[in-house]
């Protein structure tokens, strides 16, 4: 097994790894990327950098990843969707990402164009995420592109994919994630999940590790955000007890932090104890401060 990134090295060494996420904006400024990354690097091994999430056109994830890595030293997991690029553009961008020192790519299908801020764009989807993983494997392992054209030099990238333990029906999701692993995904980061049984079910089926599975969690800064997340994300069910506590604590940020620390440190401890998950992927909306607090509480 060749290891190119610190993130992958830690996973292979059996460390329990934390990652978080930074979302580039529709902006030519970079200070927010650097500030967030400087804060996150105290707590996480790597940070995901999203690629035009919800089909909104933002700063390129490759450029943002490069900026973060070169300005702060925080390793990135650069998202790449198949929504906006055909295989020519994907190959070209993988070469570009390689040149810029990006070592981890998270392959994503991408929310449909009609859901974003440029809904009249042509959705590309020339290849799907599984086929992109296969294409990447060939580029990395054989030094050839999808049509056997040789690549000069070595591509040193680890491939990740996403999975959703909340999916209903779950079999189709499990079989799909299994396909992505068969195609060559080395790690899986999951959709936000609150339910330990769903986490266990997902992990038991996929029999890690490797592939390494990082469970997505989402500490909610307010009751309203919890409601929104439940409404917007496929299958995510947030326990009523947790939501009720948030509602009662409305306006009291210290209390809200306490609720999140308690809930998520218990969940993470349970994940560590009773599953073969390799780590946690923490997502937030404007609530980075909780990340350090949860990790420090473990």
């Amino acid at each position, binding site marked *: 097994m060749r290891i190119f990134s610190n993130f992958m090295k830690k996973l292979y060494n059996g460390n329990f790894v934390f990652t978080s996420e930074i979302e580039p904006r529709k902006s030519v400024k970079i200070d927010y990327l650097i500030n967030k990354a400087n804060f996150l690097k105290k707590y996480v091994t790597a940070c995901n950098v999203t690629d035009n999430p919800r089909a909104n056109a933002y700063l390129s994830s490759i450029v943002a990843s490069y900026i973060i890595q070169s300005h702060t030293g925080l390793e990135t997991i650069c998202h790449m969707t198949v929504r906006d690029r055909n295989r020519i553009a994907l190959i070209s961008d993988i070469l570009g990402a390689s040149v810029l020192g990006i070592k981890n790519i998270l392959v994503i299908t991408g929310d449909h164009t009609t859901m974003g801020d440029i809904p009249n764009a042509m959705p590309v989807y020339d290849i799907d995420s599984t086929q992109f993983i296969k294409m990447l494997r060939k580029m990395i392992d054989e030094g050839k592109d999808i049509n056997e054209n040789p690549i000069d030099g070595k591509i040193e990238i680890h491939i990740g994919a996403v999975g959703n333990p909340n999916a209903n029906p779950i079999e189709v999701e499990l079989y799909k994630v299994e*396909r992505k692993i068969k195609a060559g995904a080395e790690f899986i980061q999951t959709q936000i999940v609150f339910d330990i049984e769903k986490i266990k079910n997902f992990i038991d089926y996929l029999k890690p590790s490797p592939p390494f599975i990082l469970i997505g969690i989402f500490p909610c800064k307010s009751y309203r955000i919890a409601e929104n997340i439940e409404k917007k994300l496929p299958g995510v069910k947030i326990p009523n007890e947790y939501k009720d506590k948030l509602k009662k604590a409305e306006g009291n940020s210290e209390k809200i932090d306490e609720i999140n620390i308690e809930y998520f440190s218990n969940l993470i401890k349970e994940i560590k104890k009773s599953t073969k998950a390799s780590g946690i992927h923490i997502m937030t909306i404007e609530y980075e401060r909780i990340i350090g607090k949860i990790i420090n509480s473990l």
Partner: protein
Amino acid sequence: MIITKTKSNLLDYVKKYNKIFVIGCGTCATKCQTGGEKEVEELVNKIKNMNKIAIGKVVESPCDLRVLKRDLMNYKNEINDAEVIVALCCGVGAQTISEFSNKEVIPGLDTLFIGMVERIGRFYEKCRACGNCILYETGGICPITNCPKRLLNGPCGGMRDRKCEVNDKDCTWVIIYERLKKYGREEDFKKIREAFDWSNISKSREFMR
């Protein structure tokens, strides 16, 4: 069947002409009730009401050059006289008419898709003519047409309680799974399907047997 709908601003196109020949279609557009005898007659009357000269004829299948020639044999003079032809048929028919007549052609219909008819007024797109039918692999359901992301290894992460993230229909890949399972072919669902070769349909196609 080729599904068509009437162009909403059709009469705006007609305005600047005085002698108009309307050609209908006896096949798909008749079934869609967009270019049959009745619709051709209605359009001819509307144009006449604009104080213009109009003649109409329904051709059995205007997309077939031979049939077009045959059915219009007795209308040579009228067509020569006309300044413009309104084609109440699909884009294929309209172009065949254009090629045959060398006249200016106004498409009277918008061509929507290749579709299934449930009943008149309820049409569903079913095939994108990809040139390499994979329906057997996918349990008789076409992901290229039905999945908004054209995935061959679905479902995507947007599937929610069986539903597609894009429309309120059932996720194509959930239906494909259920079909294959019913046929005892779950293993086919789990297979990785290779990247599609789009090279054939990225330029206009011809087929010579």
